[in-house]
Structures are given as structure tokens and as C-alpha cells.
């Protein structure tokens, strides 16, 4: 068993090496696999050749050293190399016939006609279905409007209006041999209600490639899709693209069709026996149907750390295994008979929920346990969790190697690893530490910790909140331990709790320290403080909900006559549980804050796990180290082994040094100053870092109608990825919503030390009226503003944009007051010294006499300096450039399309900076609705980018390049972009 576990570990390490090194030579690793395999065979043959030749395998089995050490070492290298080969070969997509190879020859505007098959049951995602399509053939389609001649002389002579018709010109169909397409079918299309698993369909439309990492700390969606084999996506929306069902195929795997049938029938029962939104929760936890769950509930689950219940994790499979075990035992069926049925049911369930790695892992592990208990217990065989976990990992990674880099796979595996390795030691520690006065101290300290963060929510915004919390609990546990050790008799102690409760609490501690805490910070940059409390309720409750839901679903779907009424009664009871679950999540989400954590790097994560293992298994590790040292010393005394040992030592040293050099080469030299123009879509945000300080110029747009908060989605992950604990200064260049509204969520998660603004910003927390707002902030809406000045009541805000602008400003007033952030109004000549670098305000010159602020003309122009380098920040307005800029900028950052572009072009050509970064993307249609500048924006966004390409200076648009990062290292300025040029 231990050998198998080691080999599985080597296989995973080989894959991890391929991921980290970015190696692409699959042939080399295949060769190494062969060579190492041969090397492994030689010592084995040397030791057992006689037995092998005589066919005496029993003798080999009885040999104490059946597998020579050298064979084992080379076997580990063989599996490691094979792991690397398997991973790299799966990444290949450059062969003829692969979707990627076909599509990359043409631009994104190419129209395609794809014929293919729907690979799995479509998944509902809010307003669209995600349909996974395996393309079989693909062809280019050109549509042309061709003038049709009247034909006869008579019709031409009558001067009839010319007639046109669409001519479809299509290339020959190319067979597709690799790569999948993800079609997003929106609800306003006919296909939305027609698509099913296994249909043959035809898609007409443009294919696009998913976006890669566009900002620091953000999700790489492209890589996520590629790990599922998806290389292109297509949006099926009216007039843009279409999806037609050509044929309903009844074939396909019988088992899969059976699983789908069960899933559909249970879903029908859920829809009849539980109201919405509780039904969407039950569908999520029971059938893995994440779609349809209201966003608010999803968000609350994330905040309370109970989202794992929706992931159909191993917990669900284990619950179902337990349920089936109970049912068969109740019916007095012998284990030997029902064990295969349980195995079949578990894999069918994994298929029902969409075959995610977590469910497959749990199905394999539970099956191994059930089968070993049924058939091998008589032989003295006891299944170990680590062995079954190794089998599951090998299976999943062999079948889909790219799963290795998916958070869902890692979280699932590490959850089981944490339970297997750390539960019992945690229980021992808790038993030792939590007795009598020790238990009292620990309970009181935990209670006061939660009381403090509930009462003073801003505590979690402290830059050192997490390190101090760690220290607090370390001191508490040390004190509790000492008090417990001193006291000989206790009337209350942890070990007096019922056994199941002790195990449950210990498992929670194990999960927290060995999985949820470190991995949540690593992957998501967040840590739910409510999670330890909420999961104490959530985990037992979800067990009841899943079991009851499954029983009700099966009875309702497959028992005639009384089935549905019975399911209604059972799910009515289950509704109480679901309601309580949702209420509990909502309660904790409001009660306990959900702070951001600095995202640790991979190296820091490894160090954490090393320390954790040392802390938990110090005596075991010490014993192993002493034993190995003694064995090596003994062998070293023996001349026969000395040379081999020396060779092995040199080999290990080379490996360690090589790994060290490799790790060090990956460490980036910290620049003296870094300026990152984030890709926030429409709006702007510039992140400044220098001398350990972080500052933000603007914070992007929070568009509630689109449900897209760039402050939360872009700015916060960027800050978290850069391990920022606080924001030393926020500078808002104007009060436009696309620059200030994203700040709300940033202020809720990070301590902001000071805010600098060029416009009036009250600190009393009182909202201002719309009329006052419209009088203070001029948006260039001349008609509207004239009406106001003439004394006419403005009444209802004229457009969504105005409404958003008004609301964002009032929210800023409230937040500044709530978080007690000092505000300073700045004008030309002021210097900001507590941000990153030295920032000098060049414009606006002074406040106007009537106190009004012109959003597009009074924005801040900034000179950002560090050592001998200077950078220019422009709000978009280029009218005053020549007047106010009295230095040569090394790089220019523009928060919007510069206007007038002629003035900006002249300035850029005269100053010749090393580059220009423009933050811009065309705004959403609802933002532009009734917006007085819509026509101007549309015209500029069409013509300006083309114009920029003609300039001698490189202009980076965030819409094309993603975030633009400018590093100043030893006075050298270097620009880089997150999205590399595709051409």
C-alpha cells in the first residue's frame, strides 16, 4: 500500500513539475519513462531472475525485500516522468484537425457553420444554458448581399428599385478531431427550450476564445475552459448566432441515458414538491444543478463558507453511500450481495451530477471501502483512506490530467487528506488542551473574538488582522494547554463530549487548518470567518436534506399513485430544513464580516504545509529521520554500499540545487515602482506601488444592473494578489461613476488611509438631493443643466447614467463617514506624499466661484514621480495639456479616450514617451441609453483606436491588452501587458 501511495505521489509530482516548469517536450518525458523503467527492471531482475525464470512467484512475494530500493527509486522516477508526459501530451492542440488549429488561422469575425453533437445535458446558468458541443465538421460561411439584376431589359428600363438577396458562400467542411465548443444559449432563442443531450445540432455564428488572465490576481477563464477541453465559445443570441437541432439521436451510452433519466425525473419531483428558491437549493445539492440559484443566496454561501454544499462534494456521495447501506441493512440483504449495487449507485450518482472530480473521487473511495469490507475483510485486509485517495487521484488524473490545476480537484483531494491525516491528531490535541480551566479560557477567548468582530466590524480591515488573530489563538491555546496540564481533575472537558461530537469537531479543526484556511486564501484571497461556526450547523443539516431529498425524489419519480403525494409530504418537511439552511447562511453573512486575505504564493503555501506537518507529526518525523540517518550511517560503513550511497547523495543534491535554482529563477525582482493600469472595462483604475506603499487612482465602475462590480472583481483581487494589507491613499480623478463607484467594495474590505479628491465631498455622511447633485456636478448635459439653472425642477433623473452617478456619489459620502476616512480636496500645486512615489497635482487650477465641478473638464491631472522618472496621469481631457504639463513624461496613463485627440496626439509626438496606456472599453447598452454623449462616445470608440495604431509611440488599450503594467527598475522603465498580442 505504501509503495502504491508513493508511486501516486510521484505521478502527481511529475505532473506538477510539468505545470511549474512549463515544459513542452512530451517526447523527452516519454523517453525518460522508458529509460527509468528499464533501470528499475535491472535490480529487480538481478534479485529475482531465478525465481522469475522458474515461475516461482510465491518466493518473490515471500521475500522481505521483494522490491529492491533501487527498483523503487527508479519506479518513482518512471511514474514521475510518465505523469509529466501525460500532462504535456494532454495540452497539445497544434495538430491538424484540432479546433484551435483551424480557428487560429482566421480572425474572430469569421462566420462559421459547425455541425456537432451535444456531449452532455445542458446546464442552466442564470439567463442562459451552457451547452457542450463536440464539433464534427466545421466550415467558413461568407454572407454577401448581392444585387439581383431585373433580368429583362424591360425591368431595367423601368428603373425599378434594385433588388438584393443574400448569397451564402461556404468553404468545404473540415472534419474536427479535437477541441470542444461551449455554446451559451440565451433564453430569448427557440433553441433554449429544445436542446438536449446527444442531439446533432448545427451552429451558425462567430466563435470566440475565452479571455485569459486580464488583471493581476484575476481568474484565467481561458485556462479553466481548456482544462475541460473547451477551445472556443459561441453566444447564441437572436440575430447574432443560431443553433438548430438537426437530429435527436436515441443512441449514446445506456448508463448515461439512464442517469439522465433519473436526474430529469427527480428534478420534476423537486419542481412539484418544493417552491422556488428552495427548489433551486435542493436541485443544487442533490443533482449538482448550480444554475437557477439566486445570486444573493450564492453570495451568502460564499461569505459563510458553506458553498461546498453546492459543489456536490464527497460529502454528498458519502451521505448517499451511508443511506444505501442503511436501506439494504434494513431489508436484511447481505453486504456481499448489495456491495456491487452500492458501487453502481455511487457511480451513477456521480454521472447524474455531471461527473465532477470531487464526486468521482468520493465514488471511487467509498466503493473501495464497501468492496474491501464485503470481500476482503476475511483476508485481514483493511482499506486505508490514503490508499483509496491515491487510487482515486491516479484514476482522475490519468483520465483528465489537466484537472491537476483546477481548484475544485485540489480542494476535494486536500479535504480528504486533511481529514485522514489531521483529524485524529487534532482530537488528541483538543483532548489535551481543552480540560477544566483550559477549556474555559479557550471557549471564552473564542467567544470574545467573535463578539469583537461582530461589534466592531472594521477590526477585520486592520492591516495585521490575520497575523494578530493567529497570534491571539496561538497564545490562547498555549495558555489553555498549560492550565489543562496543571489541573489534575476536571468536572468538564472536551473528552466528556459524545464520541461522534468529538470526532466531528476535530474533523472541523482539521479541515480548517489543513484545507479551508490555506487554500481559500491561496485560490480566492478570502477567508470566511463565519465558516467554522456555520459549518457546525451546515454539515449535519445537509446530511438530512440530501437523504430526505433523495428518498422523496426516488419515491415521487418511480412509485406509482402514492409516490408523488408521499414525496410532497417528505419534501414539505425537507423545506423546513432548507429554509433553515438558507436563513442560517443569510444570518451569518450579515453578522460576521468576510474579509480579504493577502493571497500567498505557491512557495508560501508549501512552507505553511511543511510547518503544519512538523507541528502535528514532530515526534513521528523525528523517529523517521533518526531511523533513516542510522540506516544510512550503517550502510556508509559498508564498503559495498558506499559508492552507491555517494551517487545517490550526489543525485539528491543535484535535484535539490536544481529545484532551488529553478524556484529562485521564478522569483521576480521587485521593481522600485510599479504602475498598473487595470482593465476595468468602461472606467479606470490605476494601481501604484512603491516603497511598500500602495495607492489607487480611481476604482472602476460598479454597475448594479449588470451585476458587475469592478471594484470587487478586479481591484480587490489585484490588491489581494499583491499582498496589500491596506491602501495608503485613494485619489479620485473626478466624481464620474465609472471612477468612484467601484471604491465601495474596496473600502469594505481594505483599510483606506486617506482620500484625495478635486471635487467637494462632505464627511458628515448625509446624502445630498438630486437637484443639489446636478447643480454641483456638470456632466456636459447642456439641456438638462440649463433647465436646472433656470429654476425648473429636474424631477426624475434623466438617464440610468445620471442615476448611477448620483447614487455613487452619495454612497461615497456615506462610506467616507462610515469608515472615518479623512478626505482632502486638492488643486493644482498640491503634493500628495503619503501615496506611492511623489504625486503632484497639475490640474484643476482652483475651485470655481459657484462651487460647481465639471466632470469632464475639471478632472485631476497628476505628475507621478519616483527617483528620476516621471509619469503623467490624464483624466481624458487633453485641452489643458500644453498649459499644465511642464515636464517630459516617461509614460502616460489616460483614464478615458483622450479628447481632443488632435491635441493629445500633438503632445504625445512632441514628448515621445515610452508608451501610453488608455483605459477604455465601450460601455454597456443600458449605460448608454438616453445618455447625451452616446453618439460622441460611439464615434470616438470607432475611430480613435485605429488612429492610435498610426502613432510612432506604442499605445496600449486595456480593452485589447488587459491590464498594462509599467515597472521602474533601476531607473529603467519597462511596460508589459497581461493579454499578449495574438497576431
Amino acid at each position, binding site marked *: 500500500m505504501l509503495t502504491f501511495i508513493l508511486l501516486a505521489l510521484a505521478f502527481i509530482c511529475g505532473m506538477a513539475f510539468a505545470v511549474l516548469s512549463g515544459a513542452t517536450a512530451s517526447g523527452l518525458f516519454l523517453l525518460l519513462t522508458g529509460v527509468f523503467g528499464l533501470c528499475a527492471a535491472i535490480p529487480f531482475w538481478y534479485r529475482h531472475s531465478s525465481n522469475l525464470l522458474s515461475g516461482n512467484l510465491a518466493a518473490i512475494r515471500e521475500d522481505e525485500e521483494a522490491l529492491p530500493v533501487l527498483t523503487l527509486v527508479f519506479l518513482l522516477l518512471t511514474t514521475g516522468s510518465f505523469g509529466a508526459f501525460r500532462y504535456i501530451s494532454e495540452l497539445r492542440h497544434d495538430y491538424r484537425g484540432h479546433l484551435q488549429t483551424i480557428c487560429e488561422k482566421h480572425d474572430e469575425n469569421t462566420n462559421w457553420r459547425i455541425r456537432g453533437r451535444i456531449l452532455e445535458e*445542458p446546464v*442552466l446558468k442564470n439567463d442562459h*444554458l451552457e451547452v457542450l458541443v463536440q464539433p464534427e465538421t466545421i466550415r467558413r460561411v461568407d454572407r454577401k448581399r448581392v444585387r439581383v439584376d431585373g433580368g429583362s431589359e424591360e425591368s431595367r428600363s423601368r428603373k425599378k428599385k434594385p433588388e438584393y438577396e443574400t448569397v451564402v458562400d461556404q468553404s468545404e467542411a473540415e472534419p474536427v478531431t479535437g477541441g470542444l465548443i461551449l455554446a451559451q444559449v440565451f*433564453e430569448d432563442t427557440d433553441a*433554449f*427550450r*429544445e*436542446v438536449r443531450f446527444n442531439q446533432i445540432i448545427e451552429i451558425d455564428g462567430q466563435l470566440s476564445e475565452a479571455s485569459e488572465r486580464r488583471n493581476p490576481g484575476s481568474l484565467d477563464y481561458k485556462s479553466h475552459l481548456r482544462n475541460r477541453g473547451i477551445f472556443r465559445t459561441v453566444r447564441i443570441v437572436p440575430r447574432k448566432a443560431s443553433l438548430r437541432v438537426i437530429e435527436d439521436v436515441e443512441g449514446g451510452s445506456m448508463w448515461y441515458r439512464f442517469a439522465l433519466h433519473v436526474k*430529469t425525473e427527480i*428534478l*420534476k419531483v423537486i*419542481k*412539484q*414538491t*418544493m*417552491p*422556488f428558491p428552495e*427548489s*433551486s437549493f435542493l*436541485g443544487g445539492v442533490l443533482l449538482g*444543478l448550480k*444554475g*437557477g440559484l439566486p445570486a444573493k443566496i450564492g453570495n451568502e454561501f460564499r461569505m459563510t463558507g458553506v458553498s461546498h454544499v453546492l459543489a456536490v462534494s464527497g460529502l454528498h456521495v458519502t451521505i448517499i453511500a*451511508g*443511506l444505501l*447501506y*442503511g*436501506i*439494504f*441493512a*434494513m431489508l436484511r440483504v447481505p*453486504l456481499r450481495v448489495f456491495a456491487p449495487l452500492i458501487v453502481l449507485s455511487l457511480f451513477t450518482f456521480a454521472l447524474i451530477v455531471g461527473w465532477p472530480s470531487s464526486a468521482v473521487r468520493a465514488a471511487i473511495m467509498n466503493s473501495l471501502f464497501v468492496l474491501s469490507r464485503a470481500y476482503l475483510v476475511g483476508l485481514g485486509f483493511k482499506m486505508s483512506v490514503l490508499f483509496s485517495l491515491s487510487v482515486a487521484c491516479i484514476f482522475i488524473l490519468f483520465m483528465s490530467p489537466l484537472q491537476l490545476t483546477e481548484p475544485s480537484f485540489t480542494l476535494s483531494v486536500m479535504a480528504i487528506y486533511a481529514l485522514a491525516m489531521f483529524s485524529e491528531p487534532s482530537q488528541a490535541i483538543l483532548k489535551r488542551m481543552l480540560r477544566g480551566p483550559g477549556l474555559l479560557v479557550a471557549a471564552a477567548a473564542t467567544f470574545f473574538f467573535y463578539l469583537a468582530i461582530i461589534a466592531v466590524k472594521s477590526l477585520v480591515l486592520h492591516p495585521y488582522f490575520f497575523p494578530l488573530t493567529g497570534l491571539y489563538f496561538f497564545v490562547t491555546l498555549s495558555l489553555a494547554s498549560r492550565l489543562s496540564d496543571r489541573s489534575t481533575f476536571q468536572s468538564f472537558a472536551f473528552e466528556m463530549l459524545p464520541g461522534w461530537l468529538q470526532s466531528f469537531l476535530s474533523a472541523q479543526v482539521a479541515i480548517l487548518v489543513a484545507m479551508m484556511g490555506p487554500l481559500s486564501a491561496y485560490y480566492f484571497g478570502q477567508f470566511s470567518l463565519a465558516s467554522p461556526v456555520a459549518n457546525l450547523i451546515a454539515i449535519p443539516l445537509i446530511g*438530512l436534506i440530501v*437523504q*430526505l431529498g433523495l*428518498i422523496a425524489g426516488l419515491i415521487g419519480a418511480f412509485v406509482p399513485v402514492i409516490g*408523488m403525494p408521499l414525496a*410532497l*409530504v*417528505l*419534501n*414539505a*418537511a*425537507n*423545506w*423546513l430544513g432548507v429554509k433553515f439552511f438558507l436563513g442560517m447562511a443569510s444570518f451569518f453573512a450579515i453578522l460576521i464580516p468576510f474579509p480579504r486575505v493577502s493571497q500567498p504564493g505557491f512557495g508560501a503555501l508549501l512552507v505553511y504545509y511543511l510547518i503544519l506537518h512538523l507541528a502535528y507529526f514532530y515526534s513521528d518525523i523525528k523517529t523517521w529521520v533518526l531511523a533513516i540517518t542510522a540506516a544510512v550511517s550503517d550502510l556508509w560503513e559498508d564498503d559495498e554500499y558506499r559508492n552507491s550511497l555517494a551517487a545517490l547523495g550526489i543525485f539528491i543534491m543535484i535535484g535539490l540545487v536544481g529545484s532551488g535554482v529553478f524556484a529562485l529563477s521564478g522569483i521576480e525582482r521587485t521593481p522600485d515602482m510599479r504602475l498598473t493600469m487595470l482593465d476595468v472595462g468602461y472606467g479606470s483604475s490605476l494601481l501604484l506601488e512603491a516603497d511598500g506603499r500602495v495607492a489607487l487612482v480611481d476604482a472602476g465602475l460598479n454597475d448594479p444592473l449588470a451585476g458587475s462590480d469592478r471594484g470587487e472583481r478586479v481591484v480587490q483581487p489585484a490588491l489581494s494578489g499583491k499582498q496589500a494589507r491596506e491602501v495608503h491613499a485613494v485619489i479620485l480623478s473626478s466624481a464620474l461613476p465609472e471612477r468612484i463607484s467601484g471604491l465601495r467594495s474596496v473600502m469594505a474590505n481594505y483599510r483606506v488611509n486617506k482620500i484625495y479628491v478635486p471635487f467637494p465631498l462632505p464627511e458628515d455622511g448625509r446624502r445630498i438631493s438630486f437637484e443639489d447633485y446636478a447643480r454641483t456636478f456638470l456632466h456636459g448635459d447642456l439641456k438638462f443643466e440649463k433647465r436646472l439653472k433656470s429654476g425648473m425642477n429636474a424631477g426624475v433623473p434623466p438617464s440610468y447614467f445620471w442615476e448611477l452617478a448620483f447614487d455613487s456619489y452619495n454612497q461615497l459620502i456615506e462610506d467616507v463617514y462610515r469608515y472615518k476616512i479623512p478626505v482632502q480636496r486638492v488643486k493644482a500645486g498640491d503634493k500628495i506624499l503619503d501615496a506611492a512615489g511623489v504625486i503632484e497635482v497639475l490640474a484643476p487650477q482652483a475651485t470655481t466661484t459657484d462651487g460647481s465641478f465639471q466632470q469632464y473638464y475639471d478632472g485631476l491631472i497628476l505628475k507621478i514621480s519616483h527617483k528620476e522618472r516621471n509619469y503623467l496621469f490624464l483624466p481624458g481631457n487633453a485641452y489643458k495639456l500644453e498649459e499644465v504639463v511642464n515636464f517630459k513624461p516617461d509614460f502616460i496613463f489616460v483614464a478615458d479616450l483622450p479628447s481632443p485627440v488632435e491635441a493629445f496626439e500633438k503632445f504625445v509626438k512632441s514628448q515621445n514617451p515610452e508608451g501610453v496606456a488608455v483605459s477604455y472599453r465601450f460601455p454597456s447598452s443600458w449605460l448608454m441609453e438616453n445618455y447625451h454623449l452616446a453618439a460622441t462616445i460611439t464615434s470616438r470608440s470607432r475611430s480613435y483606436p485605429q488612429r492610435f495604431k498610426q502613432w510612432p509611440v506604442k499605445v496600449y488599450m486595456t480593452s485589447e491588452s488587459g491590464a498594462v503594467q509599467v515597472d521602474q527598475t533601476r531607473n529603467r522603465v519597462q511596460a508589459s501587458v497581461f493579454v499578449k498580442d495574438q497576431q
Partner: protein
Amino acid sequence: MSENKSENDPGADGTKFLILLMVISLLAGGLVLVVKSDYRVKDNLLSNLEYYPHIKQEKGTD
């Protein structure tokens, strides 16, 4: 004696739990249906109209 039996047969505990779960659920579910007059198949279907709308309800439940 019974404790020993339970230790040897983990299915026995599961069986007891399952029976208890069903009895309590039937009682609680019945109570919900009595107290909450809009907890009916027809009402549930109505509230779920937008939830997986492409799954057709073939049975004439309303």
C-alpha cells in the same frame, strides 16, 4: 448485548436512524401541509416556472 450487536453491525444504527427520519419527516411534512395552504403541487409548479424551464412536466399534475 444490544450495544455489542450495534457495534458489530453498523447497518443497524443506520436502519434505526432511517426509520426515525422517515417518521419525523412524515409528521413534520404533514404539519407543513396543514398549516401552509399554498404548499401544493400546483403552487410549487407555478413558482418554479423559470427554474429549468426546458424540463417539461409531462404529468398532468395541475
